[in-house]
């Protein structure tokens, strides 16, 4: 895999850039066993003396050699052999790791971890339980010491090694607490076993806590196993998306159908897809037609019709027909890969709520260690020598019950599950901050054209004039024939309407347009005119018989086109940019969430009011130029609103950026994924309501998690220290503390996983 830049540690000739030879190729080979500059020098000179090698750069930091070579003279395998001959290890580079590989490795690591914890946890638990039922005498004490040592070294080993490593880095984590807690109990018990006299002379019982050490280790391991499994489940949505990518594609090459691995498909290849098959890569249909199920990406349950010229997206399922299409975007540029990448990035971001947890996590473990020391000292000062055991047990309980993991997991797991749930609903959320802010929105501003409305004019009404000489289908046919010669935007709507009603549109014999008024022409030997009332009057037709209907339609901001045939008024058609079928419901849902909904448009007030009324929007701001939309958002923000703006990602980009939350609305496969804080994968405005509802649910979950994590520690630690002993005589055993600690982080992750069951109302 060629890299853009050649690193320099080691021996670098003066800045040649990789891949610049026209006839050659550049390869990066992982090299192992190098320790110093002399090593890199040996590898480099061996490579450079190989015929066919233009230059070589060896990097100690990345343990790799970047070699530019002539493919005709030397093979990558030969280069590897050459490096090995110098005594260092080398292998051919693995292909670039895809998101799928990375996820698979992560899953495998998680699974191994889970199985390891489970095995060790279960074994320790059985051993600990058996120890509790043994009679107590000196021989048994020594046996317990031996067994406990083995459990600590085998099952609990990583607690001690990791605690030690962290200690050397001047940092501390959960392992530190467990290691110090269990070691304290262990060393006390070892002393009591080996030299019980020390205790009896001081009037103390030489108590043993071996089984407690074993049970604590067992419970924490079981907790870790459950946590590892639950954490794995939070990545379910990414795993599902990655799983959508088919492995092979049926490609037409040299006139033959060949099944190829997807990564061998190149741009411009023509692919074949049969009914029921998954579409392998993004592309554009060149022949055939079908209905494609895009629900896995857009959340849209109805299959989408695809015909020649339409775009299809890799990972979606072809339902009904067979078609051929040309591959367009591949690999990392494909829609699916971009969605996966964006989700991974989203999950890497920090939600603002996390900051508090971060600040506490940073000082948490040293603080707990200090509290444990203080607990020991206070108990000892109160009870004196006879209180040594009580002091020790309480200090150990403090160490064991404290759980920094719950705080660390509280917010990220919620973000992880919520972004995944969003993807299931066809809503891509850019990160924790976007999620958190979207939950606080008070005002939702909707762009009109393309967001609330379909974005394309369409015929909404057809009226036949009283006493007309032609029937409605004939009128429409003749009108469409006339308009098919016109370039007016309304004309396309008329032609599309006639075609959709199955009418065959004849060719117009002659055609003449009158700017601002309409057009006339001859179709099948009949004189056809279409236009406003002025045009009709010019040609001697009175539109009064349709006057009342026309006024009513104009009141709804529809454009009325009168139609005349053979000099007599035949009827009218009304053209408008219709509401999307789901817009009114979406506005109702947004209102039900307590949000103020505002329509923002460049149209005239009458058109804006008509759309606002039809969609149920209370407030419309009309006549705003595209560049003025940003100022309007700013004005709403000054009024005190936390504003979400919903619009397309291209024209409305400045307004989306100005808003507290920018929601970009996608249309099928043309998705400006990176445009907003939140991207709706389909044109359905209801998804905006889903996104806000999901954000609120997520913020709630984060707050619950943080509250639980803080409350757990602020209640648990004093309890373990024995704060309630003077009042209630209540003391916590370290074993109970370990069970509580194991459950606390699992409960936080489990609470986050509840978001998977989120259903928009």
């Amino acid at each position: 895999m060629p890299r853009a830049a050649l690193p320099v540690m080691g021996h670098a000739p003066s800045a040649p850039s990789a891949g610049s030879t026209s006839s050659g190729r550049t390869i990066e080979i992982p090299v192992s066993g190098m320790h110093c500059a002399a090593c890199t020098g040996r590898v480099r000179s061996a490579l450079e003396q190989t015929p066919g090698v233009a230059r070589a750069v060896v990097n100690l930091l990345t343990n790799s050699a970047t070699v530019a070579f002539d493919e005709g003279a030397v093979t990558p395998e030969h280069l590897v052999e050459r490096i090995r001959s110098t005594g260092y290890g080398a292998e051919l580079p693995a292909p670039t790791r895809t998101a799928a590989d990375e996820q698979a490795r992560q899953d495998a690591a998680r699974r191994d971890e889970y199985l390891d914890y489970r095995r060790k946890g279960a074994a320790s638990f059985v051993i600990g339980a058996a120890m509790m039922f043994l009679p107590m005498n000196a021989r048994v004490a020594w046996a317990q010491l031996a067994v406990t040592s083995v459990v600590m070294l085998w099952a609990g080993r990583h607690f001690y090694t990791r605690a030690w490593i962290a200690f050397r880095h001047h940092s501390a984590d959960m392992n530190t607490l467990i290691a110090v807690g269990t070691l304290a109990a262990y060393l006390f018990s070892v002393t009591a076993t080996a030299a019980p006299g020390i205790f009896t002379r001081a009037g103390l019982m030489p108590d043993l806590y071996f089984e407690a050490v074993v049970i604590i280790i067992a419970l924490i391991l079981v907790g870790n196993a459950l946590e590892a499994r639950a954490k794995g489940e939070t990545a379910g949505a990414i795993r599902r998306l990655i799983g959508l990518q088919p492995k092979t594609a049926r490609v037409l090459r040299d006139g033959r159908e060949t099944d190829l691995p997807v990564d061998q498909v190149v741009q411009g290849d023509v692919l074949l897809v049969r009914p029921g098959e998954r579409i392998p890569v993004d592309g554009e249909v060149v022949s055939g037609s079908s209905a494609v199920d895009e629900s896995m990406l857009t959340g849209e349950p109805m299959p989408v019709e695809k015909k020649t010229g339409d775009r299809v997206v890799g990972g979606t399922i072809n339902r009904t027909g067979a078609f051929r299409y040309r591959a367009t975007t591949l690999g990392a540029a494909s829609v699916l890969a971009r969605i996966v990448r964006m989700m991974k990035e989203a999950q890497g971001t920090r939600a603002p709520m996390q900051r508090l947890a971060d600040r506490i996590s940073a000082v948490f473990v040293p603080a707990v260690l200090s509290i444990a020391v203080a607990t020991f000292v206070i108990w000892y000062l109160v009870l004196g020598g006879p209180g040594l055991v009580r002091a020790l047990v309480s200090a150990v309980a403090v160490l064991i019950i404290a759980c920094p993991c719950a705080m660390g997991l509280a917010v990220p797991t919620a973000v992880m599950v919520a972004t995944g749930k969003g993807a299931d609903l066809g809503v891509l959320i850019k990160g924790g901050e976007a999620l958190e802010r979207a939950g606080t929105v008070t005002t939702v501003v909707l762009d009109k054209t393309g967001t609330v409305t379909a974005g394309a004019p369409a015929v909404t009404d057809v009226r036949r004039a009283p006493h007309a000489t032609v029937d409605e289908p004939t009128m429409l046919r003749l009108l469409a024939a006339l308009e098919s010669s016109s370039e007016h935007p309304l004309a396309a709507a008329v032609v599309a309407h006639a075609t959709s009603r199955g009418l065959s549109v004849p060719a117009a014999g002659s055609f003449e347009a009158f700017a601002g008024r309409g057009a006339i022409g001859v179709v099948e030997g009949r004189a056809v005119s279409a236009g406003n009332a002025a045009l009709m009057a010019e040609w001697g037709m009175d539109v009064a018989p349709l006057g009342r209907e026309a006024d009513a339609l104009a009141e709804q901001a529809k454009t009325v086109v009168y139609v005349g045939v053979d000099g007599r008024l035949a009827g009218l058609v009304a053209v408008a940019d219709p509401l999307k079928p789901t817009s009114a419901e979406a506005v109702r849902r947004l209102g039900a969430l307590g949000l103020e909904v505002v329509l923002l448009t460049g149209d005239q007030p009458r058109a804006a009011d008509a759309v606002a009324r039809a969609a149920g929007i209370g407030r419309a701001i009309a006549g705003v130029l595209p560049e003025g939309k940003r100022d309007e958002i700013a004005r709403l923000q000054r009024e005190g609103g936390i504003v979400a703006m919903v619009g397309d990602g291209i024209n409305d980009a400045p307004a989306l950026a100005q808003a507290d939350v920018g929601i970009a609305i996608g249309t099928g496969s043309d998705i400006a994924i990176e445009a907003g804080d939140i991207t709706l994968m389909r044109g359905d405005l209801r998804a905006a309501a889903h996104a806000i509802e999901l954000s609120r649910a997520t913020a709630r979950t984060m707050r619950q998690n943080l509250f639980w994590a803080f409350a757990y520690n602020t209640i648990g630690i004093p309890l373990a220290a024995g704060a309630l002993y003077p009042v209630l005589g209540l003391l916590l055993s370290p074993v109970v503390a370990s069970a509580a600690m194991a459950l606390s982080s699992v409960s936080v992750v489990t609470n986050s996983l509840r978001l998977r069951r989120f259903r928009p109302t």
Partner: protein
Amino acid sequence: MSLDKWLVLAAGVGAIAWLNWHFFRAVRRSGTASAAVSGMQEVLITVRGGYDPAEIHVRAGAPVRLVFDRQETSSCSEEVVLGDFGIRKFLPAHERTAVELTVPAKGRYAITCGMSMLHGTLVAE
């Protein structure tokens, strides 16, 4: 108060003071990225119960390659997060993983593990 109590009290106060010094005051190692001829700055960070060096100095505005060498299997360090840059990267155990980014402006940026328990700092200057 008896002598043993005085001793325990003194030892306790000493232990708490030492803990705070060790975890908050003691000097941590820092490293500076070596700038390559190509303009790419590079630094190798060992991931083993923490980040070593824990403070990495880089030049603002130029591309940086952070190479994380994770020498353990502990899941605590399996992900590295540079939240300011929207980066969350899985680090396979016993492998080197490169993270490339450009720090646009001077400042201190946090490097943490997936759970914000391990801490490092990227200092752009």
